[in-house]
């Protein structure tokens, strides 16, 4: 995850409170989804950015996991194409696995 974006996530978590934040990812592969999810929950696994050693435990989801939560027409328009070409199950399973391990909020 981009180092500047790590700083923004850290600052916004402090500003609004971790319990009020949700991070939504649009990553194209399970591996990058997992690394980004880990960064905003357990901390930066590469130890390169501001979130190194900082376990925010934020709620984190991939956009694909939220398909049933958002307006169906808007979802199809904005995400339908990528849903057809990306490995949705692998991405969703990876993000859920990280969330189950490191998210501080179980709701």
């Amino acid at each position, binding site marked *: *995850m981009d180092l500047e974006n790590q700083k923004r996530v850290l600052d916004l978590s402090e500003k609004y409170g971790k319990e*009020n934040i949700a991070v939504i*990812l*649009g990553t194209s592969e399970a591996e990058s989804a997992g690394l980004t999810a880990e960064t905003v929950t357990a901390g930066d696994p590469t130890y390169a950015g501001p979130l190194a050693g900082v376990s925010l435990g934020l709620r984190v989801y991939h956009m694909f996991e939220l398909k049933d939560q958002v307006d169906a027409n*808007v979802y199809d328009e904005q995400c339908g194409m990528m849903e057809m070409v990306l490995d949705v199950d692998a991405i969703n399973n990876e993000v859920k696995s990280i969330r189950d391990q490191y998210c501080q909020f179980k709701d």
Partner: protein
Amino acid sequence: MLKDKKVIIIGDRDGIPAPAIEECVKTVGAEVVFAATECFV
């Protein structure tokens, strides 16, 4: 799940970019406080 939450969007140029996620999130009453599209390659 998202209602009344402050949402941070990390989009992907090769996946779903931030503006597309933002359009979806706005339909459930969440507030987008930061949105960026990264390139993970």
